C-alpha cells in the first residue's frame, strides 16, 4: 500500500461563468520517501490536485469527488475537526510566496513553536529548542539569533527556509511544495532544493513538488506526472520520462525550452488550452497535436502502461523515442 493514494479525483469550482472543471479524474500514488513532481502549465490542475489532499480548497465553491487516502485512511470525508489535526502534522504545505504565508507581526520563532505546541504539546522551552534545531536543519545560519527576528528581516531564500522549517516541524509524512523556488533566484533555489533532498534522506519525508520548471523536475524528482487540462497525460520515473517522452504534449514542453533551440528557433505548441468549462469526449490536446488522427477526435485516450510498464501515457499515437 502506498503512503498516499489519490483515486479518480475530480474537482469542479462554481464560478460566475459556470462550472470550471479543474481536475477531471486523476489517480496517483505517492510512496514513502518519494519525491513526486506534478508538472504542467498554468491552469492544468496541478495545484488543485495537490491542495485536495490537505483540503485547502474553498469549501463553499468546491465540488470534489473521488478518494484521497493517507495510510489507508480516507481524507475527503473526514470531519473538519479531525482534518485540522492532520493538516500541519501528517500533511503540510510550503507555498510559493513566503512573504505572504508568514505572519509579519510574529517572530519566526513564535511561528515555528506555535505548530509544535499545538500538535506535539511541547512546553515553551522544549518548543524553542526544537525550533532552533529545525532552523539549523533547513540551513539557516545562527538559528538561535534568527528565531527572534521577524519575517521582514530575512531574505527571500531565508523566508522560504523558515516556511519549510514550519512545514516539517511535526515530521509530516507528506510535504506538499507548491512552486517553492519559483520566486527565488537560481543561486538560492539550488540551496532550497537541497533542503528537500536532505529532509527526504534524513526523515523519509515524501514530497509532492508542484512545478512548471522541467529543470527543477530533472534535478530533484524521482517520478513525474505531466498534467494537461485537468488530467494526467503522462507519468514515469524521471530519467525514463526525459529519455523517452511518449505524449506529444510532454515532448512539446521539452522542445519549447530555450535550451532546446534548433537553428536559432524554438519549437512552439500551436493553439491554446481548451476551455475548462466543457469536456468533450476527445483527446484534450488533439487540436494542438501534430500526431492527431480521427480516433483522437472521437474518443478520449486513457492513461495506459507503455514499455516499460511504469511509464504511463494517455495517447493513441505515443512517440517511441526522444
Amino acid at each position, binding site marked *: 500500500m502506498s503512503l498516499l493514494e489519490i483515486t479518480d479525483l475530480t474537482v469542479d469550482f462554481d464560478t460566475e461563468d459556470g462550472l470550471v472543471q479543474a481536475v477531471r479524474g486523476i489517480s496517483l500514488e505517492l510512496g514513502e520517501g518519494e519525491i513526486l513532481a506534478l508538472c504542467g*502549465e*498554468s491552469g492544468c490542475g496541478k495545484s488543485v490536485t495537490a491542495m485536495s489532499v490537505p483540503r485547502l480548497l474553498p469549501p463553499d465553491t468546491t465540488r470534489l469527488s473521488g478518494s484521497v487516502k493517507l495510510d489507508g485512511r480516507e481524507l475527503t470525508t473526514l470531519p473538519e475537526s479531525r482534518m485540522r489535526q492532520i493538516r500541519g502534522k501528517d500533511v503540510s504545505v510550503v507555498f510559493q510566496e513566503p512573504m505572504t504565508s508568514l505572519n509579519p507581526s510574529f517572530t519566526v520563532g513564535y511561528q515555528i513553536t506555535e505548530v509544535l505546541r499545538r500538535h506535539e504539546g511541547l512546553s515553551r522551552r522544549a518548543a524553542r529548542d526544537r525550533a532552533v534545531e529545525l532552523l539549523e536543519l533547513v540551513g539557516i545560519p545562527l538559528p538561535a539569533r534568527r528565531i527572534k527576528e521577524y519575517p521582514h528581516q530575512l*531574505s527571500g531564500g531565508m523566508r522560504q527556509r523558515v516556511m519549510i522549517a514550519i512545514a516539517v516541524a511535526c515530521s509530516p509524512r507528506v510535504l506538499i511544495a507548491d512552486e517553492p523556488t519559483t520566486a527565488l533566484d*537560481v543561486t538560492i533555489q*539550488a540551496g532550497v532544493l537541497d533542503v528537500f533532498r536532505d529532509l527526504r534522506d534524513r526523515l523519509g519525508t515524501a514530497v509532492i513538488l508542484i512545478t512548471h520548471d522541467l529543470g527543477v523536475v530533472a534535478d530533484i524528482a524521482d517520478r513525474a506526472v505531466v498534467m494537461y487540462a485537468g488530467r494526467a497525460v503522462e507519468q514515469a520515473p524521471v530519467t525514463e520520462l526525459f529519455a523517452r517522452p511518449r505524449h506529444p504534449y510532454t515532448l512539446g514542453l521539452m522542445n519549447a525550452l*530555450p535550451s532546446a533551440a534548433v537553428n*536559432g528557433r524554438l519549437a*512552439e505548441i500551436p493553439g491554446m488550452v481548451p476551455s475548462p468549462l466543457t469536456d468533450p469526449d476527445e483527446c484534450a490536446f488533439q487540436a494542438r497535436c501534430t500526431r492527431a488522427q480521427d480516433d483522437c477526435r472521437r474518443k478520449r485516450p486513457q492513461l495506459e502502461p507503455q514499455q516499460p510498464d511504469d511509464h504511463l501515457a494517455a495517447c493513441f499515437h505515443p512517440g517511441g523515442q526522444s
Partner: protein
Amino acid sequence: MILEIDNLVKHYGQVRAVDGLSLSIGQGEVLGLVGESGSGKSTVGKCVLRLTEPTSGGIRLDGRDITHLSRRAMRPLRRDVHMVFQDPYSSLNPRFTIEQIVGEPLLHHGIASRREAGGRVAAMLEQVGLRPEMRSRFPHELSGGQRQRVGLARALILEPKLVVADEPVSALDVSVQASVLNLITDLQREMGFSCLFITHDLSVVEFLADRVAVMYLGKIVESGPTAQIFAEPRHPYTQALLSAAPVADPVRQRERRRIVLGGDVPSPVDPPAGCRFHTRCPLAYDACRTSEPALTDPRTSGHPVACHLVTADHVPDAAVNR
C-alpha cells in the same frame, strides 16, 4: 553605437542600485543584461528610458547625451527608444482597445492621423501574429501571450532604434514563451532594432543575445560574446549562476558540478568593501576584501571581467575550492 552608458550611477536615497556601470550596444545588437533580484538590472533600463533621473554618469542614445534632458526635451527622442514590460496584464490600459493601444504612439508623436494610423496598426498587428479582429478587443479579452504581442506591437510601431525589454517572457508559460521568443527574434531580424534585454533567465539570454553582461550589486562583473560567456565563464559569480540553473535532463543535471554560494546577497545600502562578491565567493582571498577589482580584459579583447584572480594566463574555477 546606438546606446552608450558611461559610469552610470543611480542611488535611491541610501540604496546604491546602480553603482558605476558602463556598457554599449551597437546597431542591431541584442545585449542580454543578466542578474538576480536586487542587482540593479531593471534600474539600468529605467535610466536608459529616462523613467528615472540618473544620479551621475552619462547615457548617449544614438550619439546624443540624454542623461539630464528635461521631460520636454526628451519627448521627441521617445520615438527612438521603447520599452516592453514583464507584466502584460498591468502594462496595457484596460479601457483602450488594442487598436488604440498600439496606435497611440503614432498619434502622440503626430506621425499619423487617426485614419492613417488604422492602416499602420493593422500591418503591425499582422507582423506580431495577431489576427485583424483583435483590433477592437480589450486587453482583458486576450491571453497572456497575446497581450505580450500587443506590448511588442506598441513598442515597435514607431520603428525605434532601441528596445528595452525587461523580463518580457518571464510571466509566460513555456509553450507561450517559445512563440514570443521566436517572434522577438524574427522582428529583430526584420526591423534591425538594437535591444537591451533584461532578464534573470540564462537560457533565454543564451537563445537570444549576441552579447551578455552579468550584473552583481549594481556593477557589471563580466561581459562578452554570448557563446564565450556560456562556454567559458570567467568570473566566479558567472560560474556559480550557470552552474545553479538546472538543465532539463536528469542524467546530465545529476552529474553536474554545482557551485553553492554561501550567505545572502548583501544589502545595496552598504555593499561590501573590496570586491562586492567576496562575501559569497568560494575563492576570495585577502586582496578581494580590500581592493575592488576593475573590469578589465586581460586575456582576449571583448570579454572583460572584474576579478583579481583572472589574469592573462589564469582563469579561476569556483567549483574547485582552494
